[in-house]
C-alpha cells in the first residue's frame, strides 16, 4: 500500500468517535502544556547566533519531541469537538508507506518532486506563487508572468476577489463562479506560455469546499496531475469543510497538499514550540489531511513574515528534523516583510530559500509585503529565491556556510522588518501586455545579485 491516502475512513470515523474535547481546552489545557513539557523533556533551545544549526542531534531531538507531542495531542475536529488520535504504530505505517516521490504535471512539462536530504545537491522542486489577491484584469498577465519563469516546476495563481465586476464572497455563488473562472483562465495561461502540462496548484479563490469541488474538471479545470490544498486550523485542528475537500480530492484523484503555518507568538509560543508544532503538522498532514506534499509557512504573529532570525531557525530545524527522520515532501513557503522592487525583499527572498534548501526543503516562493496588499507580488522576488535555492544545491553549500551568510544578511534587513517598505505593485513593476519586468526592477535585480554574490550567496547561473 502506498500512502496517501492513509485509511480515509479511519479519519472520518475518529472525527466522529474520538474523545470529546472543547476547543478552548484543546488549545490551553492540552496543546500548550504538552508543548511546554516536550520542549523541556527534550531540552530544545533556540540559539539566536545560529539560525541554521549544524547539530544533527538537535534535529533528531526535535523530531522525537514532535512525535511525542502529536501522540499525546492529536488533531481536534472543531465541528465534532472530537480528537483524532493515533498510535505510534499507525504513524509508522503511514510514514513507512510514503513513497517520497511523485510526478507532478503531465507530458513534457511534468517534473519529479522528491523529499530532500540536509545539504542535498539535488535541485529543489520550485513552486512559484504570488500568494495574493489581484485585480480581475491582472489575473491572466500575472499568471503568465509566473508561468514563464524558467525555473518554475509548478505555479500557483493569484487569488480573485472579484468576477465580472461582482465582488466574490466566501460561501456565495460568486465564489463558485470565480473559482471556475480561476481554473479556466489559469489553464489557458499555461497553454499560452507553451507549458500546458505544468503542475498547477489551484484554486486559491475557492475558500469553501463547494467552490473547490466545482473547479475539478479534467477538461477545463483542475486535472488529476494538478495539486490542491487541504489547510489546517491553527494549531493542529481541522474541520468538516476541510475534510470534505480531503475526501473529494482523493476520490477525484488529484494531488493533495497540506497547508500549514504555525504562528510564532501565538499558541506555539517562541521558536522552539513553533518548530515542534511545525514538525507535528507534517505528521498530521500525512495522516489527517492525507497529503502528498506539505506547504509549510511558519510565520511571525506581528509581522506576518518568516524571514526573522527566529523563523529562519524554525524553518531550518523543521526541515532538518524531517530530512533525517522521514521521507516526507515539503515545500517551504517564504513570506517577506518588504514588498516588490525593494533591495530588502530580494535579500529576504535569498535568505528564505538558502535556509530552506540547505536544510532539506523544496521551495514555494514567495508571499511578499507581509502578505496583505492586493497586487503586491511579482515573479522577480520568486526568481531571486529560486535562483539562490538552486544555486545552494548546485554549489554544495553546507549549513555552516549558510549560517554565516544569513548572519550577514540579517544585519542588513532585520531591524527594518517592523516598518518594511511596501515597494511597488505588479502594475508598476511589469509591462502587463508583454508580461515583462520594468527596466528599473531588472537593474535593481542585477545590482542586488552582485551585492549578494559579494556576501557569498550562491546562484544557479
Amino acid at each position: 500500500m502506498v500512502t496517501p491516502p492513509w485509511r480515509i475512513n479511519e479519519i472520518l470515523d475518529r472525527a466522529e468517535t474520538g474523545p470529546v474535547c472543547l476547543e478552548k481546552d484543546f488549545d490551553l489545557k492540552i496543546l500548550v502544556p504538552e508543548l511546554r513539557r516536550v520542549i523541556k523533556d527534550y531540552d530544545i533551545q533556540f540559539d539566536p547566533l545560529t539560525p541554521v544549526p549544524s547539530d544533527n542531534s538537535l534535529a533528531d531531538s526535535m523530531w522525537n519531541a514532535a512525535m511525542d507531542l502529536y501522540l499525546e495531542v492529536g488533531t481536534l475536529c472543531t465541528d465534532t469537538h472530537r480528537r483524532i488520535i493515533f498510535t505510534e504504530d499507525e504513524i509508522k505505517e503511514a510514514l513507512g508507506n510514503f513513497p517520497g516521490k511523485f510526478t507532478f504535471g503531465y507530458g513534457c512539462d511534468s517534473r519529479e518532486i522528491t523529499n530532500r536530504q540536509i545539504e542535498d545537491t539535488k535541485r529543489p522542486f520550485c513552486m512559484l506563487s504570488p500568494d495574493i489577491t489581484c485585480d480581475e484584469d491582472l489575473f491572466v498577465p500575472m499568471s503568465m508572468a509566473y508561468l514563464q519563469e524558467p525555473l518554475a516546476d509548478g505555479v500557483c495563481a493569484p487569488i480573485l476577489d472579484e468576477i465580472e465586476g461582482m465582488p466574490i464572497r466566501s460561501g456565495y455563488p460568486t465564489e463558485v463562479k470565480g473559482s471556475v473562472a480561476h481554473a479556466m483562465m489559469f489553464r489557458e495561461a499555461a497553454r499560452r506560455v507553451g507549458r500546458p502540462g505544468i503542475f498547477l496548484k489551484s484554486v486559491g479563490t475557492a475558500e469553501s469546499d463547494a467552490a473547490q469541488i466545482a473547479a475539478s474538471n479534467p477538461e477545463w479545470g483542475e486535472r488529476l496531475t494538478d495539486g490542491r490544498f487541504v489547510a489546517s486550523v491553527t494549531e493542529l485542528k481541522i474541520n468538516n469543510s476541510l475534510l470534505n475537500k480531503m475526501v473529494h480530492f482523493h476520490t477525484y484523484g488529484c494531488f493533495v497538499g497540506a497547508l500549514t503555518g504555525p504562528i510564532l507568538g501565538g499558541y506555539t509560543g517562541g521558536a522552539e514550540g513553533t518548530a515542534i508544532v511545525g514538525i507535528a503538522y507534517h505528521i498530521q498532514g500525512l495522516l489527517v489531511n492525507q497529503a502528498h506534499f506539505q506547504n509549510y509557512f511558519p510565520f511571525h504573529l506581528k509581522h506576518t513574515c518568516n524571514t526573522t532570525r527566529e523563523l529562519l531557525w524554525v524553518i531550518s530545524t523543521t526541515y532538518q528534523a524531517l530530512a533525517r527522520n522521514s521521507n516526507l515532501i515539503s515545500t517551504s513557503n517564504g513570506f517577506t516583510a518588504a514588498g516588490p522592487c525593494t533591495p530588502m525583499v530580494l535579500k529576504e527572498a535569498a535568505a528564505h530559500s538558502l535556509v530552506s534548501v540547505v536544510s532539506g526543503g523544496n521551495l514555494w516562493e514567495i508571499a511578499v509585503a507581509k502578505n496583505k496588499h492586493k497586487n503586491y507580488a511579482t515573479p522577480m522576488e520568486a526568481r531571486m529565491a529560486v535562483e539562490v535555492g538552486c544555486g545552494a544545491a548546485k554549489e554544495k553549500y553546507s549549513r555552516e556556510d549558510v549560517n554565516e551568510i544569513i548572519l550577514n544578511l540579517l544585519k542588513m534587513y532585520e531591524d527594518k522588518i517592523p516598518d518594511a517598505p511596501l515597494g511597488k505593485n505588479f502594475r508598476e513593476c511589469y509591462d502587463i501586455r508583454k508580461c515583462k519586468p520594468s527596466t528599473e526592477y531588472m537593474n535593481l535585480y542585477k545590482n542586488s545579485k552582485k551585492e549578494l554574490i559579494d556576501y557569498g550567496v550562491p546562484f544557479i547561473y
Partner: protein
Amino acid sequence: MTLESLFEALKRSVEEFKLEEAKNITKELLKAKVDPLKVINDVLGPTMEEVGEKFDKMEIFLPELMGAAEVMKETTAILTTHLKESAIEHPKPKGKVILGTVHGDIHEIGKDIVKIMLEVSGFEVFDLGRDVPSIQFIERAEEVGADIIALSALMTTTMGSQKEVIELLEALGKRENFIVIIGGAPTSETWQKEIGADGWTETAGGAGKLATKLIEGKVK
C-alpha cells in the same frame, strides 16, 4: 506579610498566571480589609497593562497573555463579589461585546487577541468563534443585551459580511441599538466609513481604547 509584599505577590501571580496563588492572596487581602477597588485599580490594572506591553514586544506569547488575562478575570470576580456583598458601589463591566470572525472566514488568531484586549480593558466579551452567520451576531447581541458588536474579517471576500451585519441591523431597524466595530488585515478606516461602522483599529492593542471611547460617547 506587609501589604506591599502582598500586592507584589499578586502582581507576580498574574504575570506567571498562577490562579490558585492569586485567589489565595486575594482572599488574604480581603481578610486584611483592603479596599477591593484599590486592588483592582492599583495592582491588577497596571499589571495587565504591563503584560499587554510585553506581548506587544513579543517578550511573551499568546498562551501567557491568555493565562494572565484569565487570572486577572477570576481575581477581579472575587473582588467584585465582595464589593457586592459589602454593598459598596462596585465597578460594572464597561459594556458587553459580541465578538466573532464573520461568515465564510476561519481566520481567528487576531480575533482571539482582540478578545483579551477588550477583556483587560474591562469589557465582558461573548466570543462566537469563527465563520459566524451575520444574523447570529444580531440575535446573540440581543440575547445578552450587548452594547457592542465587534467583527473580524481576514479576507477581502469576507469583508462584505461586515457590511452585511450593518445592513441587516439597519433593515431590522436596530442599527441604533449597537455600536459596531470592525478589524482584520484587509480592512481600513476607509472601509469602516464606507460601510458605516462606528470604529476600526489596525491592531488589537487599540481595540480596548476604541471601545471605551465609543461607549463613553454613547452614554453621554
